[in-house]
């Protein structure tokens, strides 16, 4: 606030200054002093990068049936007596390399998780802003719709939605559209939480005088909501979105485990666990163990990161 700090800042490099301000700021400072946050961020980064680079890293394309050899089926991990060279974590009953399947499966799991969080955040922000800013009967209506969605168990809604979509689509398109269907059904059940958070914060912000100043200028309501109120309610959304990313990935895994999610031909982590579960008691423990470990690792890392973010952005805990 003094004159000295003012002169050291170059006003013509706002982008650079913003990055430096972020690295100097409380958030980055607290991050590097919280080991659990740093480790979980690293773990997530490695998992995300290996998932993206799956075609380069994996010895086998698990989607390509011509690369699966039945004589290599149910091989144990490489460090056990019967383990064989490229199959690092063993193979399943169809000769599918578990390591490759995990990389490709993580890709699908992360993709559906992120996509469904983004879709539900978008729905939640739209509903929450409208509800909180316009108010009145529209608010009442939208919030009762939200209550209705919340009153039905999430998994039931997701199963119903994906079942309906799958029936509507021709068989040839089903497999290709399954990720979209899963994303939609998870998003439909999880937007209410964001809508409630955004609505509550919007009602607080809308009474503040900077919003009145914008209303005096006769700015359209949509512009006031998006450019004035939204930036001030995003913090809460960001924290919830991070914590919900774990839940979304789990929801996809659950749906796939129950057989209404990703098909066996393009397995996600949940599908792999379901396949492995069938052979668990016949001794092929590796088919279920490694995908399950990967899933737990992802969820744990996301939750630790979300917990840290929630604490870091909560002014009361500083």
């Amino acid at each position, binding site marked *: 606030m003094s004159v000295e700090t003012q002169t050291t800042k170059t006003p013509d490099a706002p982008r650079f200054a913003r990055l430096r301000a972020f690295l100097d700021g409380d958030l980055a400072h607290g991050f590097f002093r919280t080991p659990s946050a740093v480790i979980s961020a690293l773990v997530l980064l490695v998992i995300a990068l290996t998932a993206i680079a799956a075609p380069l890293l994996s010895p086998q394309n698990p989607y390509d049936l011509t690369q699966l050899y039945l004589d290599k089926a149910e091989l144990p991990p490489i460090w056990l007596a019967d383990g064989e060279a490229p199959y690092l974590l063993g193979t399943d009953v169809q000769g599918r390399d578990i390591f490759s399947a995990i990389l490709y499966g993580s890709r699908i799991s992360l993709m559906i998780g992120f996509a469904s969080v983004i879709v539900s955040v978008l729905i939640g922000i739209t509903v929450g802003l409208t509800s909180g800013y316009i108010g009145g009967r529209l608010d009442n209506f939208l919030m009762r719709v939200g209550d209705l969605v919340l009153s039905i168990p999430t998994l039931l809604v997701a199963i119903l939605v994906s079942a309906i979509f799958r029936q509507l689509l021709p068989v040839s398109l089903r497999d290709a559209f399954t990720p979209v269907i899963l994303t939609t059904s998870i998003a439909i059940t999880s937007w209410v939480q964001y809508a409630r958070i955004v609505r509550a914060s919007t009602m607080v912000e809308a009474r503040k005088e900077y919003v009145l100043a914008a*209303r005096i200028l006769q700015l359209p309501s949509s512009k006031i909501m998006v450019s004035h109120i939204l930036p001030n309610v995003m913090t809460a959304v960001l924290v919830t979105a991070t914590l919900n990313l774990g839940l979304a990935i789990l929801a996809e895994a659950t749906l796939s485990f129950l057989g209404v999610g990703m098909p066996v031909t393009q397995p996600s982590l949940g599908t792999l666990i379901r396949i492995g579960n069938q052979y668990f008691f016949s001794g092929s423990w590796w088919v279920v163990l490694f995908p399950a470990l990967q899933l737990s690792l992802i969820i744990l890392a996301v939750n630790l990161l979300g917990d840290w973010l929630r604490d870091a952005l909560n002014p009361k805990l500083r």
Partner: protein
Amino acid sequence: MTNAHAKPTLRVDDVACFFDVSPSWFDRTVMRKPQRTLKAVDGLSFVIPRGTTFSIVGESGCGKSTLARMVVGLYQPTRGTLSFADGSGRDGFVRTQMIFQDPFASLNPRWRVGAIIAEPIKQMALRPSGVETQARVRQLLETVGLSGQDSNRYPHEFSGGQRQRISIARALAAEPEFLVCDEPTSALDVSVQAQILNLLKDLQRELGLTYLFISHNLAAVRHVSDRVAVMYLGRIVEEAATDEIFERPQHPYTRFLLDTVPNLDRPNRDRMQATVDLPSPIDPPPGCAYNPRCPLATDICRTAAPESHPVGGSLVRCHHAIA
């Protein structure tokens, strides 16, 4: 400065603003609860000539801010009319802007100061290009006593007084002819209050602005106003020129307000005490709204509401103020 022939900047005629504070439809039907109306403002009339400052004083909850919000168009009056002079603003009337009470809530914390001040210019298309808008923003910052460099900073980097200056710069960016100041100094330190008041006075002289100044700070009001109205429970109880009202207060409520101001010459003097809290505007007392607190109250005050009538140079709403 005042031109007797020009139309006044604002003529307020019998304006009222009621809010419906009834219980929900369910409670009214099932629990037989009555409908309730909050009469925030009930029958205000006054005139603000061009280039002058008209002040409204009164304690919290008397309807000052409701009036301010009606003047800038945020609330619609339930009854009465607000007629503005012709000008360059919307619908051909004077352009009106507002300065707010809380400098910590009146600036968007996520916006840079430059963007905050540029918004009215962009919204009203007052400058043809981005370069000229930026130049105008720097000029406005310098007008209110800040540096043009400050446009790249965020509001949290400024003190309360500096933020109020930014708020004034934003109001000026719209090139207003009429400024509504809703308690612009009540959140500031005393030393900073004087700076902001002097800035407002300088701007009035330079730009020929008209002010509606709302405050509960009597010293500030005396410093800036040409005319003062005292509000009590949604009505004006006394209106007069500034010197008149401070030298010869007519209404007992005005006298009470002036008596609460600390006086350095007479410390620890016996003051009139407010024995009764401000009555609720949902359920105002019958007769004169001031009667439960008034030392002069008689039977007529408890039954009949007094009309506003001239006493000396003032307009007074009291049965006991006689010319």
